[in-house]
């Protein structure tokens, strides 16, 4: 019974069929026309409704009605509001101390130190489904880095990082050039930031410590139940079961805690420190994420412009460096696949006759001289 398929699909199929031998166009066509479920992606939305349902047909652009407040587009718009405009930085908590004001005020503060914080990757809505900047922190001995990650850093043209973390940003304006270093002056004094870190782990803790239960009496006939949680719920008539989410003893701490809207008291590029007011979760030496506060207005346009300009001035060749690293990575990757890496290491690698011929053919196919030759002539 053919009419099950929409006529448009059939038409598309017959029209595309002659293209089947072409390797590039074959697979996508097949996937789109014969999928049994309705397609889901960023563009089409994540709805599980069949495409025929068309829930939006009553609110067309031409209908003069306001934009729908539900659906993927509206959800993304809502989410954008609470997403910071700029990426943040990674830092290490170095400890708490006091910040003595000139008027006699004593402000408890936390010292966070940035160490070689670099941008590593930009994530886009088209490729990854959301806008984000991946940022790396510190330095890691390559012997403690796996081969896949060594290749990753090779392609980025940067040294292996101790930590990697992502910072969601509102849109493409928040993306940054890859490989540039972010310094404490990414923020300004007085700015409000959100600081995220994992709290100190307490291990397996009882109900009194973990949830603040009262415990039980010391006397009045109590026996060996002084710190136990007591009853876990009503009995027969209420189901004789423990309700989901019942507070009980268990692992405590080592959870991500966000301290919102902490004002910045001091920044210092030389020491690499950002001093924020108040406390931050976690022990000394823990990794923290600092980003513009999502519940406060973002930094002014001028300030954002200034920081971006500073990045450009400090790292004028960032893009070119990345491009070179990518080219080199592709070349080395190929060499690794073909087991030629030792020759490259020895430096004595000469193309064999067949390889030279292959290369020439490749150049001829491309119709322009390769970049390698171009560089050699310079």
């Amino acid at each position, binding site marked *: 019974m053919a009419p099950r398929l929409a006529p448009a699909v059939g038409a598309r199929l017959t029209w595309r069929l002659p293209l089947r031998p072409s390797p590039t166009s074959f697979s996508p066509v097949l996937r789109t026309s014969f999928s049994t479920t309705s397609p889901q992606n960023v563009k089409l939305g994540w709805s599980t409704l069949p495409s025929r349902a068309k829930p939006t047909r009553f609110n067309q652009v031409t209908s003069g009605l306001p934009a729908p407040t539900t659906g993927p587009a509206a959800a993304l718009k809502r989410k954008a509001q609470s997403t910071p405009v700029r990426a943040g930085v990674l830092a290490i908590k170095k400890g708490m101390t006091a910040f003595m004001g000139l008027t006699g005020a004593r402000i408890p503060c936390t010292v966070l130190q940035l160490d070689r914080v670099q941008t590593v990757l930009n994530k886009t809505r088209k490729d990854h489904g959301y806008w984000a900047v991946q940022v790396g922190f510190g330095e890691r001995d390559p012997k403690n880095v796996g*081969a896949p990650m060594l290749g990753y850093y090779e392609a980025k043209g940067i040294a292996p990082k101790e930590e990697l973390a992502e910072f969601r940003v509102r849109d493409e304006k928040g993306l940054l050039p890859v490989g540039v*270093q972010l310094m404490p002056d990414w923020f300004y004094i007085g700015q409000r930031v959100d600081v995220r870190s994992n709290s100190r782990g307490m291990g397996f803790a009882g109900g009194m410590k973990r949830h603040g239960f009262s415990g039980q009496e010391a006397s009045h006939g109590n026996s060996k139940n002084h710190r136990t949680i007591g009853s876990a719920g009503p009995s027969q008539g209420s189901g004789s079961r423990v309700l989901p989410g019942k507070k009980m003893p268990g692992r405590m701490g080592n959870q991500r805690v966000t301290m919102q809207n902490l004002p910045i008291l001091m920044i210092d590029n030389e*020491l690499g420190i950002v001093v924020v007011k108040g406390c931050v979760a976690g022990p000394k030496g823990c990794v923290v994420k600092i980003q513009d506060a999502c519940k406060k207005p973002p930094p002014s346009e001028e300030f954002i412009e200034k920081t971006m300009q500073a990045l450009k001035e400090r*790292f004028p060749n960032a893009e*070119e460096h990345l491009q070179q690293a*990518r080219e080199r990575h*592709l070349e080395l990757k*190929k060499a690794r696949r073909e087991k030629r890496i030792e020759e490259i290491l020895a*430096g004595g*690698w000469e193309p064999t006759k067949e390889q030279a011929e292959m290369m020439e053919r490749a150049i001829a196919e491309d119709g322009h001289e390769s970049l390698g030759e171009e560089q050699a002539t310079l």
Partner: protein
Amino acid sequence: MNVTPLARRPLSCLKSSLRQARQQKIFSRSMVTEVQAAAAATPKTPSQSPDQNFYRLVDKKTKTIRSAFALYPSTSAAAGVPLTPPKTTNPVAALHEFQIKKLDPTGARTALFARTREAAKVGDILLVTHRRGGEPFAGVCLSIRRAGIDTAVLLRNHIGKVGVEMWFKIYNRNVAGIEIVKRRLKRARRARLTYMRKPKHDMGSVAEYVSAWRKSRRVFQTKGAKGKTAAAGASGKGGKKK
């Protein structure tokens, strides 16, 4: 040469611009140091020279090189511009130093509570004057909590037969002066004299020590200068008169 068409396609569009950049790069490459130059150089022709900036994965059994990855030194970030690690790994101490320099430029307060023979010790009777007027507080020093800019002293006195203890942050701007009224005769053999809270050891009011000290200070001051209080420097030399 060995670049796959995938990577070459966008390059061909930008070729003219990239060529210019490459010419400029020659100059920059001559400026940078040896290590960075090795990292920035793209060995498009691998036959040029052995590149040392590789991390080799060696097979443990056969001792042969399984694979190798280019390694960019951590000192170069983007195009040979050096990455700057922080100057110190102990920024809290640096922050203390910075603030102390600002709040105690003469170093008098630091010297008063340093670990030296002349410095104030636990068991000494200290007098603290406030910046915003008010009664100066005198008391026997029970403990000194040393924590850089956050260094504080605990003073104990009796006011109206009631024991009173107060903490003072020595670098706080509200603390105008700290003076040693009377030194303890023998060095205390404890860091914290908490036993002085017990009735057996309690010193009681230190008012008489303070008044005696004031009298001794008055000898050096003329009658006319009585009204002008020389707001005490921390060294204990500037007399404080009420």
